[in-house]
């Protein structure tokens, strides 16, 4: 009997996690898994918007086409900035593993700055397009473009605010088993935004150059 109890107690309920600070509590593990599922929902949302964009990208209604509008150098710079910001958030997590809170603050701070730089360039880009007659209401292509890229931009903005709030919020508490999962999920979210941008760069801009 007691052998059977022992056996049942040992039946692993949740998969074993590496011994990291962010997964040291059930709450932390829940948060990380929950964010993964949330990202699953986000993937579907962006997939739908990509589908809509692909269906409508040639419906320019006489306005400027994708070839007229897109300039790869600017978008390439934006891509580089966002990819580097993903790297800096990884460095932040790396410092977290080492228990160095100063390093976490530094690298996540750099991530926020890079995110803000990306946003400024995107705003500049949108103004530029509006000057060329490509607006939200000008054609179905315009509506689809601003909805897809704008939704991504809104996610970047939310990420910038989120991580800034997190840095402010934890400035006194430092790294604990309560704050570590928060940094970890924020970095997961930030990677996700980056991945979406890689797809936007490919599907919207690069494919837009070849028509």
């Amino acid at each position, binding site marked *: 009997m007691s052998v*059977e*109890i022992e056996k*049942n*107690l040992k*039946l692993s*309920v*949740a998969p074993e996690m590496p011994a990291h600070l962010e997964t040291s509590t*059930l709450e932390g*593990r*829940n948060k990380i*898994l*929950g964010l993964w*599922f*949330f990202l*699953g*929902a*986000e993937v*579907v*949302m962006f997939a*739908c*918007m990509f*589908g*809509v964009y692909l*269906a*409508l990208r040639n*419906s*320019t*209604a006489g306005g400027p086409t994708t070839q007229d509008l897109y300039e790869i150098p600017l978008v390439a710079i934006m891509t580089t900035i966002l990819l580097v910001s993903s790297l800096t958030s990884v460095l932040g997590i790396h410092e977290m593993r080492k228990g160095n809170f100063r390093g976490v603050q530094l690298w996540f701070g750099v991530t926020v700055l890079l995110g803000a730089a990306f946003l400024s360039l995107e705003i500049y880009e949108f103004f530029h397009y509006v000057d060329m007659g490509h607006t*939200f*209401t*000008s*054609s*179905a*292509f*315009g*509506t*689809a473009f601003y*909805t897809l890229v704008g939704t991504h931009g809104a996610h970047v903005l939310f990420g910038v*605010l989120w991580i800034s*709030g*997190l840095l402010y*919020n934890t400035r006194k508490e430092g790294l604990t088993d*309560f704050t570590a999962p*928060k940094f970890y999920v924020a970095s997961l979210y930030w990677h996700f935004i980056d991945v979406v941008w890689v797809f936007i760069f490919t599907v919207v801009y690069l494919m837009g150059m070849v028509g």
Partner: protein
Amino acid sequence: MATFLVVAVFIAFIALIFTGGYNSDFLDRARKTKIWDWITTVDHKKIGILYIASGGLFFIFAGVEAALMRIQLLFPNFDFIGGATFNQLLTMHGTTMIFLVAMPVLIGFMNVVVPLQIGARDVAFPFLNALGFWLFFAGALLFHCSILFGGMPDSGWTSYVPISLNDYSQGPGVDYYTVGLQIAGLGTIAGAVNFLVTIINMRAPGMTLLRMPMFTWTTLVTSALLIFAIPPLTVALFLLMFDRLFGGNFFNVAAGGDVVIWQHLFWIFGHPEVYIVILPAFGMISEVISTFSKKRLFGYTSMVFATVLIGFVGFMVWAHHMFTVGLGPMANSIFAVATMTVAVPTGIKVFNWLFTMWGGRLKFTTAMIWAVAFIPTFVMGGVTGVMLGTAPADYQFHDTYFVVAHFHYVLIGGTVFGIFAAIYYWWPKMFGRKLNEKIGKWHFWPFFIGFHLTFFPQHFLGLFGMPRRVFTYESTPMVDMINFISTIGVIGMTIGSLAFFYNIYVTTRYGQLAEADPWDGRTLEWSIPSPPPNYNFAQIPLVRGLDAFWLEKMAGKKEMIPSEPLQPIHMPSSSHIQLIISLGFFMSGFGFVFRGFELGALGLAIAFFGMFMRSFDKDRGYYIPKEELENVEKGA
């Protein structure tokens, strides 16, 4: 809008006078009331009850809407409410029944039951759970404000473009639909994430995946469906909102838009949605039939497999709603075959229920009667479903009353019967009292007979060619009679529903107290008191197999073996921040509906401010000391 503000301020003023609200200890007194306790609760059982209660409230609304429509169709060329109102009632009835009745009641049961079934003290994210409910409620309330302010949406629950665009549906009706459902959808996503994480991470020791009760399994699959099905709806509503409010061109053909995009997005959501509302009902039925047959669920593993398969295939059949759009014979054939594939796992389930009852010691309580009535009724709906999935025949059935009959057979005969079974089954666990069995029979028989009287003849109405969603018809011999019979059936369903609400009243006032295990149950929820203490399990039980509690009872024990020593229990604190966030979204929604974009932005700002408030919250709950637990357990 102005009327609304005046009324709101007036109500606030009156409330202040009657509560003596000007003095400073008003807030303190408010905090001690029961209402404050309920609206700030993060306890999964209370949130579940809130979900079910609001589902019940909207059930009354949508039921009255249905009755009004049936009266309008009583006679040919009848002038009772007229076409414009009919369109509005039709839209409200469909949308309310799906989004604000079926889903919240099912999610409510998931909330109450799943943590108890897996031996957990709460869900993974108690705050998010409360936020999910209040977002749902804010969306539902906003949607229903359309009755009072500006007119209801009138382009059907599917809200096809272009009839839902500004040109054809003027007034704010459809805006209530787009904005209200988006807010409610946010809440649903929160709920789904919560259940997934809870079931994956928080099962009691020993409860492997294939030892989970069937209702927990269906909850897991349903939550996964929600995660992937709600976002397409959100995007579709986004696009429609942009077209209506901000001059977007997604569906404006003149500017290059495409109306079929809406249909695709809507049904990529809409078909999994069908399984979202039926799978949990399958789970409920499985629990009820197994308990009252005194047998282990027949073919448990195949049941799990069938559930997962239905969830998987459910994403590949959406275009069977669009056979007549003209996607071409190739697409139609593929989707027709995929659609018929769903009948296989569903058939597995039906036979498993029958074989569970076979040779069992059957006990026909009200819950069991609902569950048994479910089987033939749902099978009929399934058969007409396969008929509709036959693409060539669908050209004949499409948009006729045949479709109406079909989906009412699966939604009432499936989901609603399942929910009623679940209500009679889990009521003692939720409230500590058993619903009256005699009134339960008065609930069942009129409802069951009335339901078939209303919807069975509608199959023929459809085959005779009567289109759905029309507000009247020319006098034709058979059509007149069938419509008349169909409306008569509503009386039966009304009597049944009234008996049900009367039953709740009688039970709450005079009902007999229920013991912990009133049905001789099989799963963990019956091993703790009715209603359970707010920490559920004083000691997390050890699970040694499927039907864990039944195993222990068969081994001659009265209780589960604990897997841990008695120790202080960590509990989350109540919170009011979810109310601020939901209020923000509600305000914002109102602003967008009435094109008051300043109010819209302000509402969003409040909502995001609430989220940051929550993030900055330093309250990390409290502990129930060991002595208190010992006292309670001794008393029990």
